[in-house]
């Protein structure tokens, strides 16, 4: 579904990604871990189409297309979803407000009839239950004054609404209390099918107990320096990153 080959990306002439290789197949869950500043969010942003980053080398193929050719909205319509590490505040725009336009533009792209007000509401209700989010939050200005946990829950709610093929969850677990974590993880698991895939970026093994990854990768200094199965996460939790850093230098 997704194939990243030797991806290099820079911002303001500073190279952040220095040759990423990763392949994600339908039905798989990949976890990406790694120390602060190693480039995890950068990778997520590049995949979502953020134009501030310049791809200097490499190739990303998504569903047999050159992903890097697509505008962010085209990627979203093709089923890529990024749950932001730091969801932005947009004064005056509520979730309900933009989501209806978003869904219908996505549906149009996929050759589906647009939702009318009734079916949109029905869909909303269903997905609200899934992540246990309150209607009042969705009517408020996006992320304005939201608590850390509310922001993350809102991201997963949107993911549920947009039914992506490839979800990238960038530290969606940070800021969630243990109950919220379980609800959000349950939500993600319920949305899982054999046809879609998930990339979870996290610092904590805790999340991976709920969302069980098929593969765990360690991103360090712009490269994936180690890959393994879920046991790798346990090892990292125990030993930290120093042993990997040392090995990379050596």
């Amino acid at each position, binding site marked *: 579904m997704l194939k990243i080959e030797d991806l290099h990306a820079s911002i303001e002439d500073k190279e952040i990604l220095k040759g990423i290789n990763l392949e994600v197949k339908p039905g798989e869950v990949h976890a990406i871990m790694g120390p602060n500043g190693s480039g995890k969010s950068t990778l997520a942003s590049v995949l979502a189409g953020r134009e501030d980053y310049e791809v200097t080398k490499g190739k990303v193929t998504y569903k047999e297309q050159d992903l890097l050719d697509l*505008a962010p909205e085209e990627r979203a319509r093709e089923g890529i979803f990024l749950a*932001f590490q730091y969801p932005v505040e947009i004064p005056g*725009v509520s979730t309900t407000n*933009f989501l209806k*336009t978003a869904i219908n533009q*996505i549906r149009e792209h996929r050759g589906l009839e647009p939702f009318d007000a009734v079916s949109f509401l029905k869909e909303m209700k269903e997905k609200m239950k899934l992540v246990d989010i309150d209607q009042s939050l969705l009517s408020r200005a996006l992320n304005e004054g939201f608590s850390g946990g509310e922001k993350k829950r809102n991201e997963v709610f949107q993911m549920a609404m947009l039914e992506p093929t490839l979800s990238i969850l960038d530290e969606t677990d940070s800021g969630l209390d243990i109950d919220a974590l379980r609800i959000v993880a349950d939500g993600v698991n319920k949305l899982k099918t054999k046809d879609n895939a998930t990339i979870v970026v996290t610092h904590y093994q805790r999340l991976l107990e709920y969302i069980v990854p098929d593969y765990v990768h360690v991103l360090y200094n712009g490269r994936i320096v180690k890959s393994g199965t879920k046991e790798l996460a346990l090892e990292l939790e125990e030993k930290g990153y120093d042993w990997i850093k040392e090995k990379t230098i050596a």
Partner: protein
Amino acid sequence: MSLQENLIKNFEAFEAQLNGHASQPEHTTRKNALEAFKTLGFPGPKNEEYKYTNLQKSLEKAFDFGKIGAEASITKEQASKYFIPKLDTHKIVFVNGKFDEKLSSIEGLEEQVVIKDLSTAFTEDSEKINKLFSKQADYKKDAFVALNTAYSLDGSFIHVPKNTVVKKPIALYFVNDASEGQSFNNPRNIFHIERNSEVTFLEDFNTEGAHESLTNIVSEIIVEENAAVEYYKLQNNKDTAYHVGTTQVHQERSSRFSAYTFTLNGAMIRNNMNIVVDGEGCESNMYGLYLINGNTHVDNHTEVDHIKPNCVSNELYKGILDDSSHGVFNGKVFVRQEAQKTNAFQSNKNILLSDTSVMNSKPQLEIWADDVKCSHGCTTGQLDEDGMFYLRARGLSVESARALMLYAFAVDVVSSIKLEPLKEFLQNLISERLQNDF
């Protein structure tokens, strides 16, 4: 002959057609105003108040003023297409500044309330008028007020006696007929609202025909004790329409006044919104929204003069500028020594959508009292990139994302409108504009 000389020369012709009016006391005021205009001259670039709005140059370039008051004819169909849909109002239509009875309709007006065209009022109510005319707007200070005062024969006199609620808003539609030649007019309004009364005014400006038009309007509004006035000014005019307007408000004890200025199009527009708060316990609101592109130039000058204690003034102006448009905001707030416990808030926020659009924003607070709460903030920036990316990453097209963000930026000014049909009309107009033009 310069524009100024031309206008001065034209005054003789204007005087000649005054007939009976020439003997009236207000005629002295007119002559004095013309003298003031001669002294002041059109404001050039050196005039601090018109620093960014060089009307002298623009008017010289656009107008010849060869013949003022060319024959105008606006049909009922032409006029009514400008009426705000679903808004039930008394309609007073002015064509090239002159009251047009055929096009106007005043139905179900409360007894005692007077709506008259100014020239009739000068004759019929001369005693009343002479106490009010040119008592608020100072022609010695501003050339355009002077010019308006010198030429003012047309416009309206609206008198709301005490304890009267005028149910329907009073809408003044100014339609310029510039189909046969340039149109230049100086309408003058006098709104006198006595104590405990309530009324809503709407001033709307439009132009027919392809030639340039210049409206130089002055509205003097007296809001007596405990009266409440809402005042809407709507400018969605042609690219050839120039506008200079002064709204001079005098508020007395415990009165409420709210002004809303919406500027969606025009050539060059200068709005002066001046409020003198001359009584305790008053509330004054000024809202403004300008949405401009092309070469449109919009200058909003506002002034709140707090003379007495315990008053609140609140000001919010927002602008979205595209192409080579130019916006100016100047907000003066004076808090005099006696005006303790004043709360004065001012905010001006702008979004520039292009590299060639310009915004000059200047707050000017002068506070002599010590026990006051005043705040002001001016921001001018681009559309928020992070917000744009977020919405696009959710599947929204660039156009939709932009329209949504801009609408959200502008909407709080519109939301404060109390007339539902007008609110709806403007919401639709603005969201359409944001989806198409910008």
